């Protein structure tokens, strides 16, 4: 059994571009900022040039803060050491977190502060998780997830479609 407490140091450092800079400005302040279509309200992550939901070519696409709360959609455990710099981190979990704001709005993460085996048997879909912000460099803060420590606020019934 293993617990990953941190992924620092990060062997591969994100390099923001014009599109992704607002996301990384947000994480430095402990916020998750996701591009949102001002016409239909759909979140697009990674950010896009036209909203993939409504396709309105005039709609403003603006980064807005999300709660960061989510649940695990799926995961895998990386054992292979073919990514330089990650050799001493294997096996490490890669989880896909579905944010509570929107069905199918995913953030990739590792899973910190959770005991797992080589198969990730204990990592279950639907597991509530919360963000942790890891300072990777002077300019880059990386979003990670850990099991939720706070109860999620109750959601109104039917506010969110169930996944079939």
């Amino acid at each position, binding site marked *: 059994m293993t617990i990953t407490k941190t*992924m620092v140091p*990060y*062997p*591969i*450092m*994100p*390099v*923001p*571009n014009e*599109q*992704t800079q607002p996301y*990384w400005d947000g994480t430095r302040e402990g916020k998750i900022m996701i591009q949102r279509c001002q016409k239909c309200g759909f979140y*697009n*992550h*990674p950010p*896009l040039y036209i909203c*993939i*939901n409504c396709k309105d070519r005039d709609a403003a696409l603006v980064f807005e803060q999300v709660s960061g709360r989510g649940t695990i*959609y*799926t*995961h*895998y*455990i*990386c*054992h*292979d050491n*073919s*990514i*330089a*710099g*990650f050799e001493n*981190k294997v*096996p*490490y979990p*890669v989880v*896909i977190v579905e944010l509570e704001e929107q069905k*199918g*709005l*995913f*953030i*990739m*993460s*590792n899973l910190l502060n959770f005991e797992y085996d*080589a*198969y*990730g048997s204990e990592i*279950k*879909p639907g597991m509530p998780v919360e963000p942790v912000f890891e300072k*990777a460099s002077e300019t880059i803060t*990386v979003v990670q997830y850990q099991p939720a420590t706070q109860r999620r606020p109750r959601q109104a019934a039917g506010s969110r479609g169930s*996944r*079939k």
Partner: protein
Amino acid sequence: MPLTWSKGKRPVFVGAGQTLNRRYSGRSVASLANEAALMAIADAGLKPKDIDGLSSWPNPAHQVARNVAGYDRLDVRAMMDFIPLENVRWYNQNEIPPAGSAGMVISAALALGTGACNYALVFRCGHHPPGLRYQGISARQAPGNAGFALTYGHGVGGAGQAHHFQRYLDKFGAKREEMYTGYIQSANHNAQLNDSAVWKGRTITLDDYMNARLIAYPMSVFDNDMPVDGVKCVVMTTEDRAKGTPHPGGYFAGMAMNQWQLLKGGIIQPLEAIYEAEAVMAKNLYESGGLHPEDVDLIHVYDGFSPMVWNHLEIFGFCKIGEAHEWTQGGTIALNGPHPVNTSGGNLGDGRVHGMTHVYETAVQMMGTAGPRQLKNLHVAICETGPFGNGSSFLCTKD
């Protein structure tokens, strides 16, 4: 709408040629291509001067490619140079890997049907340079959107499928050992009858599978196809011209492409979205052929990553969604079973030539030249290539 062809202009396979897939063969792609193409052309009873159409997917098979034609890239110009082919009138160089190897056949079929060419050579290479970690990543930076994934150490071979497989296991209550008895075992068996196969001479037991080196759990080294050096080619022509060739077989009967617009972008495509998009591809495929899953007696579905076999058996209607892990048990998909799948061993058993394995085997089975693997009384074959969510597919018929 069913595809329609002028009288005598239905495309059909007439020849196939391949080099034996080998790890670190020491041979250049140019040398391999020359051998496989001349073999395919001769198999069709033709000469290089007869070939007037080319359909290729030239991108190198690995991430650390030099992208040099003849070394690790096999494009149209290189093929014209290597043989040489002096009478080419039409060619297609498919730069979209997701369209995959079936996409090359589709393009060639359409060119043949319209008379843009009369004899098309369809080809793809696999290449794995010695001394290089096949899918090794040595980057120190993750620019732009890569920062949302590579930063987390996401990107080893098969990683992009591992989370789909885990989702499938969780969602449908499937077990990893079912992948052995529900696909790996039959692919391993089929590979024993295929001289090209990297798995030939190697028996993989359930113990071997369950204790294999893990890449990205739930996927192990046996769930990911093995990089190889090899070239596979098929020759296609039209029904009227095929009458003078030794063993025409597999009349092109339907086609469909991936539905990108149904995938909502994002960090990953969820399993559910890919199923919805591929269901449209499956519907388009059967409608274009006027055929149904019950008509199909030879199934080739991409297996560069093992879980895709289950995904595609469900999507193309051979069993219900979520049931392939059970349906494939007990010899259902074995060579001598009622629904043989990937009869050459697929990409897992044969090696990583990116769906061209499936195209080649579909062609030889329908032409009746599959040797020890030859199935009898084949009527309709389906061939899907390209990874889950990225594919293209065609149907072909005996008559």
